């Protein structure tokens, strides 16, 4: 695709500048490309520095703007830190947050959200796809429940946009956060969908110029937005085929790993992101497994960090896993560039490492470390 950069309006009005920078101002400008991928009108897209900023703008902005109407927020324990920490900030500001616990499958049931709603509930924030275990929530049903009660719905969709079909209008969402680098675009740019009608009240987090319709002042990173737009267009072009391909590879990997025995899948069956597989190996210590995989497989363990003070993953803990079960768990991610030979090589490396580590361990670990 041919992209022409223009410097003539580099410091000019933001929205026009973005259009100028796109390859086809009429049909494929960056806002159009980004909006099209999530089924949104172009003027509903606010560009940010990434999903973290989008989540913060959505939650802090909506809560602060609506604090005279209510001070109750509903979210889940398995949200991304960008949502969790924003909600903790709201607690410090006097809001009350209900932290929903997912079911054993890792999902938040719409009925849970409905039950948590109160007359003073301002906003619900539930993620689309979970970044650690890959489960996908039924955000459309959650959106319907929120709409029926006049409560705002914010969705962190950073993991799902570009991987699964997303239609923010069908979700009945008011605010949806996503980011470029999760779908192959550049780091440092993201977007917040802000429902156009009725438009939710949103107090900006930064001031100075009134860019992005006053929601997000500051000169935009135009080159990154161009990249974001192109990435969205590319992701959307073969979304279904790519989803099916990656999902099939993931299932191939899972089938291979099960031959290790005493292995479980965190998140289990049901709707899921195509490229995330979170598996636990009984009797395995996560840091040693990661070390054994060095040079062959890049993965992350169920501990937030591999130092001695490693905290078990709060997502896995929320599923009911023990600390040791968390530590024995590994998240494997597949993507656009993953090929079958990569999966087969990863499975071979993992099976070898697991067998070796189990052979090193004292008797009894398989029963206790799970």
């Amino acid at each position, binding site marked *: 695709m041919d992209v022409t950069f223009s410097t003539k309006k580099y410091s000019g009005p933001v929205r026009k500048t973005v259009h100028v920078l796109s390859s086809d101002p009429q049909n494929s400008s960056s806002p159009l490309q980004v909006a099209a991928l999530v089924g949104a009108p172009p003027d509903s897209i606010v560009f940010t520095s990434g999903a973290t900023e989008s989540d913060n703008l959505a939650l802090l902005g909506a809560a602060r703007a609506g604090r005279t109407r209510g001070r109750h927020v509903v979210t889940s324990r398995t949200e991304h830190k960008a949502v969790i920490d924003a909600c903790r900030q709201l607690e410090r500001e006097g809001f009350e947050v209900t932290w929903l616990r997912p079911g054993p499958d890792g999902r938040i049931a719409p009925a849970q959200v409905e039950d948590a709603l109160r007359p003073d509930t301002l906003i619900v924030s539930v993620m689309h796809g979970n970044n650690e275990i890959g489960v996908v929530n039924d955000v459309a049903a959650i959106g319907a429940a929120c709409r029926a009660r006049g409560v705002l719905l914010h969705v962190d969709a950073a993991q799902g946009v570009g991987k699964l079909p997303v239609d923010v209008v069908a979700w009945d969402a008011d605010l949806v956060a996503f980011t470029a680098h999760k779908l192959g675009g550049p780091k440092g740019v993201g977007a917040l969908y802000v429902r156009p009608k009725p438009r939710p009240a949103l107090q900006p987090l930064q001031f100075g110029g009134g860019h992005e319709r006053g929601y997000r002042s500051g000169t935009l990173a135009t080159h990154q937005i161009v990249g974001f737009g192109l990435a969205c267009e590319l992701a959307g072009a073969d979304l279904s085929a790519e989803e099916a391909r990656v999902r099939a590879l993931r299932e191939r990997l899972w089938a291979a790993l099960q031959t290790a025995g005493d292995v479980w899948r965190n998140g289990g069956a049901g709707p899921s992101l195509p490229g995330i597989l979170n598996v636990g190996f009984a009797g395995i210590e996560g840091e040693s497994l990661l*070390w054994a995989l*060095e040079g062959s497989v890049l993965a992350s363990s169920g501990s937030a960090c*591999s*130092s001695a003070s490693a905290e078990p993953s709060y997502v896995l803990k929320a599923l009911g896993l023990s600390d*040791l079960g968390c530590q024995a768990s590994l998240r494997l991610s597949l993507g656009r560039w993953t090929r079958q030979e990569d999966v087969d090589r990863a499975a071979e490396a993992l099976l070898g490492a697991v067998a070796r580590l189990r052979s090193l361990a*004292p008797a009894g670990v398989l029963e206790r*470390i799970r």
Partner: protein
Amino acid sequence: MTARYAEEVRRLGAQPAHAGDPAPGPGSVVAGESAAPERGAWVRFAARIVDGTVEEARFRAWGCPHVVAACELAASRLEGHPLGGAQGLSAAALAPALGVPAEKWGRLLVIEDALAALAAAPATSK
């Protein structure tokens, strides 16, 4: 994120020559174990004693690479000495030898406990 490991940890942990159980042979076998997975280590040492000297020492371990390397080092230091007579087996001695970070020293104490259990264990088999 993978922690950084000293070269000695990488060398000992990658190919631990003393992993496993003592091979059948002359003398008697003693074993000592300490299981504290919540603290990050579960280790078992076994030694074949011949004429009052550790002829062969072996270990099994569940833990991070520092734990595995420390067990390998400790097992190698056990050999050739009377049980309880080897030096350099304490957590304080193992930590600097392997560059074990302070936050992991508790895991070395689990190893120390297993070695103490080994030294106190009665011979259980030939």
